[in-house]
């Protein structure tokens, strides 16, 4: 430590590399978690059950193919899969029309609606969707016939709280249907895809309006602790689907896990690959830099190494001491880098980066604010490139020790 040139540069390089690794790991972790949670809450659940016919055309939200008999199915699910909590949902599209004093159209706009179990005391939907946090004006619906719409949409329509809005849509049998609702609150989820023209209504109201008694487009299942576990959900889906494998009924239920929906499998695998590739790149780049630093150190310490060899220190021992030294440098750099990386990550976890303007037309369910996420793995991930690069760099630069000849050392020391 007394000779700073020996340790300062390697420690600095390792610290910066580790810091970037930790920060990038937390950032990707945050984006990945955001995608999983956003999709699970608004669209996929941890698992989702639909009719086979509905699942085939899910993108078009084909409510004419919705599952009929959800009460019996949900009773069965609660008994067979107690590790999940279940909730029915209906997604629907239509037109939200605001009347003038004569009952004629004053303003209107296309709406993407989501019917959820809002009024049932045992329902967890309000908490799951964070409706209290998302509420901008008004209150959460407490009575039949009350709805929430996105704040931006309400402003576009020039709609005041308590006003009537008419939903114009289709029943599950294709008939045109209209229903008057009272808008009691406006919301903003921070997810641009949801905030453009969203409407949240109680599922009983929508079942009546859309002629869907005891019917829902989708039944979402969530792990009781609301933590998504890929293998468990995949296993549940396999067992459930095996039970219905013997029937050709296109309206038989089918269970799909989160990964199988919205092309999430490819996206999440991509995120995993990015993390892996980033780690490898950091190890390689830092190794090259540390190798260089090692070479420079070897030049500066040319005399010292020569003397140690001349007085009979075995080359292997000398090589090992240099490796041990680099391990210490790696450790110090990793600790410092991890501390700095975690510091930045915690800041980004709390504040986030607002990318809403870049996602104006995005259809992907993803928050408009990107946040990092610090996990227990974030505390150790930096030690992989930190130690590996330091050891690798010294191992390569230290090979020079074995090339030096004892006979020449004496001459070099004399001059």
């Amino acid at each position: 430590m007394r000779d700073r040139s020996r340790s300062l540069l390697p420690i600095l390089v390792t610290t910066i590399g580790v810091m970037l690794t930790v920060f990038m790991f937390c950032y990707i972790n945050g984006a990945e978690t955001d995608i999983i949670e956003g999709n699970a809450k608004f669209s996929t659940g941890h698992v989702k059950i639909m009719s086979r016919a509905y699942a085939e055309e899910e993108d078009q939200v084909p409510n004419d193919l919705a599952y009929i008999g959800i009460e019996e199915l949900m009773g069965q699910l609660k008994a067979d899969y107690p590790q999940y909590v279940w909730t029915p949902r209906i997604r629907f599209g239509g037109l939200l029309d605001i009347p003038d004093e004569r009952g004629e159209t004053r303003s209107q706009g296309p709406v993407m609606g989501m019917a959820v179990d809002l009024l049932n005391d045992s329902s967890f939907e309000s908490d799951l969707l964070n409706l209290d946090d998302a509420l901008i004006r008004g209150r959460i619906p407490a009575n039949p016939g009350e709805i929430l719409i996105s704040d931006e949409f309400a402003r576009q329509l020039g709609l005041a709280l308590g006003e009537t809005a008419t939903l114009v849509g289709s029943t599950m049998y294709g008939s045109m249907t209209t229903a008057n609702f009272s808008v009691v609150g406006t919301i903003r989820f921070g997810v641009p895809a949801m905030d453009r023209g969203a409407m949240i209504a109680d599922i009983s109201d929508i079942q009546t309006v859309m002629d869907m008694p005891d019917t829902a487009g989708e039944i979402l299942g969530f792990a009781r602790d609301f933590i998504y576990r890929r293998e468990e959900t995949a296993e549940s889906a396999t067992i459930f689907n095996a039970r219905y494998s013997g029937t050709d009924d296109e309206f038989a239920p089918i269970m799909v896990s989160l990964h199988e929906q919205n092309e999430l499998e490819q996206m999440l695998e991509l995120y995993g690959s990015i993390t892996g590739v980033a780690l490898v790149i950091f190890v390689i780049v830092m190794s090259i830099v540390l190798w260089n630093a090692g070479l420079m150190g070897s030049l500066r310490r040319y005399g010292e190494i020569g003397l140690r060899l001349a007085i009979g220190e075995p080359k292997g021992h000398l090589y090992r001491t240099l490796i041990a030294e680099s391990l210490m440098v790696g450790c110090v750099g990793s600790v410092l880098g991890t501390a700095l990386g975690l510091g930045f990550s915690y800041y980004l976890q709390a504040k986030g980066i607002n990318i809403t303007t870049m996602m104006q037309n995005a259809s992907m369910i993803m928050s408009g604010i990107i946040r990092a996420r610090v996990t227990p793995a974030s505390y150790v991930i930096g030690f992989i490139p930190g130690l590996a690069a330091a050891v690798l760099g010294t191992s390569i630069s230290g090979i020079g020790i074995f090339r030096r000849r004892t006979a020449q050392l004496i001459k070099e020391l004399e001059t």
Partner: protein
Amino acid sequence: MKRIIPGVILILTVSLLSAQIPSGDDILRRLDANTVSDSRISVGKMIIHGRRSSRTVEAKSWVRGTEQSFTEYLAPARERGTKMLKLDDQLWTYSPSTDRTILIAGHMLRQSVMGSDLSYEDFMEEPLLHRLYSAKVVGEDTVLDRSCWVLDLKAVKDDVSYASRKIWVDKERDLALKEERFAKGGKLLKTTEVKSVKRIQNRWVADLVIFKDALKQGRGTEFTLDSIDFEANIPETIFTKASLRK
């Protein structure tokens, strides 16, 4: 001289043959004249075949010229009392359950009418085809045992729902017996097949038609015509928004 005579014969034959083939635009005008009247009152049914079940919607329509129409749904119970009014380029609907008069506009125009294969845009379209398309005769064919001209229609305006159409027109009755409608890129969007025709008030009309959205699965929508009265006397007040609430 020996060479000239066959040439002259060939030219004369081609000229005579082409003289017998009317131009596509003439056929289209005759088709429009047979289809469109100054006014008419009709009652008909739509049988909509879904993947789960089929249902029948009954409606009565009052039409004046090409710009005004009023439709009242008579059955089933859920639809009864629903009314639609087309006034120029606006489409209004009245729903008795909400007592609301709603303008159907924007993306809603592309939605299906009562779950059928027909969209509101189809409902709103200018019925005089010769105003929207230029036509070319591309062949002859037989449909419903009737000899037909096959016409290729290309849109002459930008704001039409279908960039091109192919129509099989009965040579004698000036009635379209089959039709295919295409998007700008050439993708088939809708098909129409006439299954039966009858003569009413000196006009040939289709009384059973299968209309199919080519992008949807299913058997399409059947339209049956129960009655039609051409040149009917229709009170002016029916084509007003006030009549929707009556």
